[in-house]
């Protein structure tokens, strides 16, 4: 018999308490994983937006809510592009329509994509770094018929280069599938600006302009100049966009850590309570062990093996529940079938989060075992062995 085997028998002996304790830890870890996976996904998307349009100025309608480079609502006339191109320091001004829908296709009623981007097709590769545009197929050339679709949408609707889709009542051809790692582009449909304006009735309207500057132009100065010249727009430099977004990311991060700490404290208290109850009930057993000469390390090993086993079982079960919860919530909030999140599981629940949650569950359970261990080691053995129960 191994000393650590005794802990298994102890847990088995108090089956109901052990199961309840494991369930308690599992729910804490599930909550932690579910919340973290959801917030991490949002943070990853927001951070990813920052990869686009580096060193460029984004022009949007004044008072529009902007997440990194992308506006939520707010339109400006397309002629703004001409006014921008008149500024000496501006090398190029690319008009864009960017439509974000949390639940795919719910607002637009068009094809169920979460992001629809319209822009001049000849500017496509200038705007998006090539890493985001690993295209299976070809780049669209017919600006009234051809579109690019993200990999997640393509997988969901079984689309490939050459497939036909109906978008807002018009039949379009999929020129290519974007196979890059971008979460945003994986749920996007990209088409020509003209086509999107026509389909979504945005004639003559856009909601953002990406302004590329000439070499040696001062970004801040040009942004100020744009805002002075065109009074209905905001010209956001990269640092201004970060300033708008970082407080949101920091707050998300704060709540993420807060939830983790809160749930781990609850788990720790639960395990410590259960273990104190276990060792209190087994005081005579521990006193016997000490009386026959059990070294302190064996007592430590027994109690810590018991608590870490609770951590491993509760943590593993929690990861399972948490993974299911994360898939469920992501599916509910985005209207994407759960199967696609299951296929893409490690993007939704990153391996680092899994390792972190399991390690924290075990660590907190081990730490919770320290108090009961000292409780046992301080027992007066002769009095305990004498006591009548």
């Amino acid at each position, binding site marked *: *018999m*191994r*000393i650590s085997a*005794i802990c298994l*028998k*102890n847990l*088995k*002996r108090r089956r109901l308490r052990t199961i309840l304790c494991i369930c308690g830890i599992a729910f804490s870890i599930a909550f932690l994983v579910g919340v973290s996976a959801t917030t991490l996904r949002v943070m990853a998307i927001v951070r990813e937006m920052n990869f686009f349009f580096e060193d460029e100025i984004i022009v949007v309608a004044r008072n529009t809510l902007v997440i990194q480079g992308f506006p939520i609502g707010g339109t400006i006339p397309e002629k703004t592009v001409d006014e921008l191109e008149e500024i000496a320091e501006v090398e190029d001004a690319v008009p864009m329509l960017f439509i974000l829908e949390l639940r795919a296709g719910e607002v637009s009623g068009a094809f169920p994509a979460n992001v629809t981007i319209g822009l001049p097709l000849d500017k496509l590769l200038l705007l998006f770094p090539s890493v985001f545009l690993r295209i299976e197929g070809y780049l669209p050339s017919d600006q009234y018929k051809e579109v690019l679709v993200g990999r997640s949408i393509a997988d969901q609707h079984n689309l490939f280069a050459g497939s036909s889709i109906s978008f807002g009542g018009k039949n379009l051809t999929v020129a290519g599938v974007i196979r890059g790692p971008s979460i945003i582009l994986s749920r996007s449909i990209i088409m020509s600006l003209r086509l999107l304006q026509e389909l979504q009735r945005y004639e003559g309207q856009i909601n953002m302009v990406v302004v590329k500057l000439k070499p040696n132009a001062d970004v801040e100065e040009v942004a100020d100049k744009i805002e002075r010249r065109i009074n209905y727009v905001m010209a956001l430099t990269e640092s201004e966009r970060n300033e708008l977004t970082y407080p949101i990311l920091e707050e998300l991060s704060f709540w993420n850590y807060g939830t983790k700490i809160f749930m781990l404290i609850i788990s720790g208290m639960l395990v410590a309570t259960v273990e104190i109850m276990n060792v209190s009930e087994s005081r*005579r*057993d521990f*006193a*016997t*062990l*000490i*009386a*026959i*000469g*059990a*070294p*302190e390390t*064996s007592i430590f090993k027994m109690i810590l093996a018991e608590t870490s086993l609770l951590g491993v079982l509760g943590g593993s079960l929690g990861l399972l529940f948490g993974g299911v919860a994360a898939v469920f919530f992501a599916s509910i909030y985005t209207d994407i079938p759960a199967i696609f999140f299951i296929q893409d599981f490690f993007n939704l629940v990153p391996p680092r989060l899994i390792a972190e949650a399991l390690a924290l569950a075990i660590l907190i359970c081990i730490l919770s075992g320290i108090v009961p261990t000292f409780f046992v080691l301080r027992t007066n*053995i*002769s009095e305990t*062995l*004498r006591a009548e129960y």
Partner: protein
Amino acid sequence: MIKTVDLTKIYRTCSSAIVAVNHVNLRVRRGSFISIIGPSGAGKTTLLNLIGLIDKPTYGKVFFNGVDTSLLSEKERRETRLLKIGFIFQTFNLLPQLTALENVELPMALMGVHPREQRERALKLLEAVGLGDRGDHLPRRLSVGEMRRVTIARALANNPQLIIADEPTGDLDPETGSKIIDLLCFIHRERKTTLIVATHDEKVARVAEKTYRMYEGKLET
């Protein structure tokens, strides 16, 4: 092997002090069998706990194999208990979640003996106490006499130099009590183990080589 010098244990409460063991001077030779007889509350168990290094005296000293045990660290006291002393507790103190066999294996497991060897030795010990077929029984499935025999087997597990038995026939019927006495005598004879038995059973006292009487903490021959 065992020598106590002015061994005294006082339990203090807020309002009073109880002298459980009062200036006891005792000498036990290696391989001898002594019994300590006396009524309940005489201090027998306290004296055994002091000799067995489970408890520490208020005054006085216990010498084990010539070593002053008051100079030993807690770790050394535990090692001495594990390797050199076997305890037969009054209330059995078998671990309820372990089978009879596992209870016997326990001291060997604490000593780090290989699990296979633990099993072989434990089986032999259970056979020696007549419980070869009860190894997989949990303590609650055993009779009082059988539990007593398991505690004897456990006490022998690490082949100790000294066995301390506290009321080994205390709650047994006369027939089972006699069997336990016979078993202890057999172990003493065969293994040359030093045996200290506290009892209020005159039959045990009759088979011991030397009998001490204890009353209100004092030991008399």
